[in-house]
């Protein structure tokens, strides 16, 4: 069993679990970065170096920076830690955890029939680019619309307005 695969996959899962159990937001963001980097390794192993690069640049880079910015703007984390502790009692997380485990079990049960063999051949950025600006050009248009909508939304919501009583 290749060590690399095991390492990357387990690091991804561990990172994700750490993200949802941290009390301090900055720690969670750091673990999220770890998760994304590990996931980028998984993408490379799946033969998708382009996706891996994007994952590192955009997810672990840009989006996480956005998170850090917001956390910095929101301010100190100390009282938050106590409050999070208050919110994270077993009574609060037991039910959801059971639900999520149930879903996980069902999905795994459903996937048991898929063959676990076969080695993927890498898909180069060239292939992706050709299909992006060939048959999937609508996708590019859609993504641009989506990003524009997001931009307008963020601008509108985040604009500083005088408070109306």
């Amino acid at each position: 069993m290749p060590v690399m695969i095991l390492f990357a996959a387990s690091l991804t899962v561990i990172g994700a679990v750490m993200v949802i159990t941290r009390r301090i937001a900055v720690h969670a963001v750091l673990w999220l970065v770890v998760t994304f980097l590990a996931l980028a390794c998984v993408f490379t192993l799946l033969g998708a170096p382009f996706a891996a690069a994007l994952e590192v640049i955009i997810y672990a880079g840009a989006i996480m920076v956005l998170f850090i910015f917001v956390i910095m703007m929101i301010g100190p984390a100390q009282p938050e830690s106590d409050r999070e502790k208050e919110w994270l009692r077993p009574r609060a997380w037991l039910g959801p955890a059971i639900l999520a485990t149930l879903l996980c079990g069902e999905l795994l049960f459903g996937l048991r029939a898929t063959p676990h063999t076969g080695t993927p051949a890498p898909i180069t950025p060239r292939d992706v680019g050709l299909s992006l600006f060939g048959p999937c050009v609508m996708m590019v248009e859609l993504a641009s619309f989506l990003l524009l909508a997001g931009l307008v939304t963020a601008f509108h919501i985040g604009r500083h307005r005088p408070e109306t009583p």
Partner: protein
Amino acid sequence: MTALPPGDALLLAVILFSTGLAGILIRRNLLFMLMSIDIMLNAAALVFIAAGAKWHDATGQVMFLMILALAATETAAGLAIILRLHARGRPSLDADTGNLLRG
């Protein structure tokens, strides 16, 4: 270089997705909920990449790009809402208090 079979990648995606879902259900803090959503989106992206690898088709990665755009948009809008709530005097970012309109 060793390669990961796409079938195994699906297992990893399932586990990641469940973790993200659990995060959304458990955490009350809006910031953590956003991060959990990102984890779930990544699980979905992993499925696309794995499917693309299995059939050797670049469309999987095109869909990954789409998810990337979606995640960026979602995060931007979500964080803008968080900032706005914070500015309006709800520093706790508790998702459970926002259940009334004009609250």
